């Protein structure tokens, strides 16, 4: 049983949740004038999780997405982009959950046999 593996997967799930919330906020603000899409650098944040496993995990920094065309009301939310990212993040989350389940299954096998 690899304890740090579970911890890392926990960090991964937390990160996926955080990103999903940012995407949700972008979708919610699709009609808010002047709103700019936000996102996190997933790779950078995952690297941080792996470097500092065990220490308290802070929320990753969000930044405005550059290069999206702005509507006349100053809003630059792209629904297609957000929908795609939402499905992607959902699948990433699913993968994390399956990996955690398999870790626990390994432990269960060791106990049973």
């Amino acid at each position: 049983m690899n304890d740090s593996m579970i911890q890392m997967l926990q960090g991964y799930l937390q990160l996926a949740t955080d990103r999903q919330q940012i995407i949700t906020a972008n979708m919610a603000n699709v009609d808010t004038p002047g709103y700019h899409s936000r996102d996190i650098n997933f790779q950078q944040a995952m690297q941080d999780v792996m470097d500092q496993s065990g220490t308290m995990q802070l929320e990753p920094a969000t930044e405005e997405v550059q290069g999206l065309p702005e509507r006349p009301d100053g809003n630059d939310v792209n629904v297609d982009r957000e929908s795609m990212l939402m499905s992607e993040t959902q699948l990433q989350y699913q993968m994390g959950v399956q990996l955690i389940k398999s870790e626990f299954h390994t432990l269960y096998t060791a106990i049973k046999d």
Partner: protein
Amino acid sequence: MGIFDMMGVSASALAAERQRAEVTSANLANAETTHTDQGGPYQRKEVVFSSAGDSPFQSVFHQMGSFGQPAAGTVQLTEIVNDTTPPVMRYEPGNPDANKDGYVAYPAINPMTEMVDLMDATRAYQLNASAISAAKQMVQESIDILKSS
């Protein structure tokens, strides 16, 4: 931040879009209303959305202190404003609301604009409803970790 905050953000958007659809429906329904309690024709109304909630730093700060703060990215309908476009005057001498020259003030409402606005609100509502479904599925998956394999 958390999965349940996510649903809160989507729910705030659902509420805002529903109110927007309500205001638009009221505009459509009153497109020919020439007489109101305030006097004069019905005035077209518009909603104002704004983004509320904490910045990421503040949300961490509040998580450590108290609960009940709105999650980052929540949408709020801040106010409903009257459209100040002057009313359209139509010549209808027989109408009881006609002025001394026989003209009746009708609200400046274009049904096309309202229909498009209504469609936009419906689509945004659907988008956020599907976001809630996604969040629900994620919660369901986390619960499945508990199930013995």
